[in-house]
């Protein structure tokens, strides 16, 4: 069992944070094949002793494909959950999202994507081994603890990210790493 990577997308559909821990993440074949200029320039330096990459894949195709997959599955899940589907209620009721049949994870032969969407439209996604059980609590912690404390309460950090801007502050990187690497599933 292992956890491969962590991805965040904001409500403008931009990838604002990527963290890949493993040497061979299944989604990202190799960085050299995507010779994207922006992906290298936006890469954030890692705290000492950490492995993998931070914000190295925000602009490459994997990020876009992952976002597309999550977005589509989330929409299908929402639609299926509200059968008989009524277009009007979901528009008029702002809290409809909480009652929706929300996407929690999807699995393929080699990995599982754990997903959480916040009420304000942030996407949190962890890619792991397919054997890793539900990580909803971890995603919730990443949002309510790490993100809120190191981004929202951080007066030197953006909270609404312009295009191609990413979360690059070190305390956030450290906070995510501490939470994830301490998980039994990470080993």
């Amino acid at each position, binding site marked *: 069992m292992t956890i491969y990577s962590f991805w965040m997308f904001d409500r403008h559909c931009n990838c604002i944070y990527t963290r890949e821990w493993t040497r061979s993440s299944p989604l990202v074949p190799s960085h050299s094949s995507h010779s994207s200029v922006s992906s290298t320039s936006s890469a954030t330096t890692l705290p000492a002793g950490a492995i993998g990459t931070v914000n190295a894949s925000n602009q490459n195709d994997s990020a876009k494909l992952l976002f597309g997959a999550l977005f589509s599955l989330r929409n299908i899940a929402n639609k299926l959950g509200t059968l008989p589907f009524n277009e009007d209620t979901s528009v008029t009721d702002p809290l409809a999202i909480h009652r929706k049949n929300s996407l929690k994870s999807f699995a393929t032969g080699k990995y599982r994507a754990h997903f959480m969407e916040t009420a304000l439209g942030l996407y949190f996604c962890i890619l792991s081994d397919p054997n890793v059980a539900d990580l909803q609590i971890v995603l919730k912690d990443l949002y309510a603890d790490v993100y809120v404390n190191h981004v929202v309460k*951080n007066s*030197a950090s953006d909270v609404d*990210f312009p295009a191609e801007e*990413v979360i690059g502050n070190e305390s956030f990187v450290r906070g995510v790493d501490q939470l994830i690497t301490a998980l039994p599933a990470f080993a």
Partner: protein
Amino acid sequence: MNTVESQQQPAQVNSACLDFLLMEIVPLSIRVSQTIERENKDKLRLKLEDLSLEPGTTHTNDPSVNELLFQNKDDLPGTVKILEDELIRSEDVHFRIESYGFSLGLRISELLLSQEQQTAHKLVELLDVMKFVCRDVWKNLYGKQMDNLRTNHRGTFVLVDNSLKLISRMSSSKGMTDTIGKAQPYLWFPCGIIKGILASLGIPASVTAEITQFPSVSFSIQTSIES
């Protein structure tokens, strides 16, 4: 930051909301300076136009086009690009932030001393006043005491807070040096508070703050009174 509670009705303030409000001190101050600067430039431009022999030619410009040049297009809601503005180092911003703190300090010392009459009687020497700042004031402002108090017994005091709440959560994406650079202007606020409190007790002082090891801050207080 806890509010000072009166005996009858203990009131509480959501600390996160207050933190968010205090986070706006520096951006607000920079924006005020930007606006003043812009207005001055506009006035200067108008004066130059008045002086020029051919006023007609300058007036052909669409004013809305000129307007855009002075506005900071990077300053979008939810972003912190404003902290990159060079005005952050200006004396104008410095004094504005300090004066916010100063008037807060005047009020806070009034409030604290009116509630605890015994404390007021204890403030005999300069050192007592500093202890009052370290204990009572800091506890009411930040929920903790200052971590260290040193003096040379000749009017100079150094107060150390090992984790100043105002800046302790700051972390810039450009690393520690950049974080410290952006945190520094926030320190003028507590400097102003200390200055205000001392001024309310009749002690003129100059207060400077320095980030020794982030987020540890040491305040140097220089008074002319020898104790």
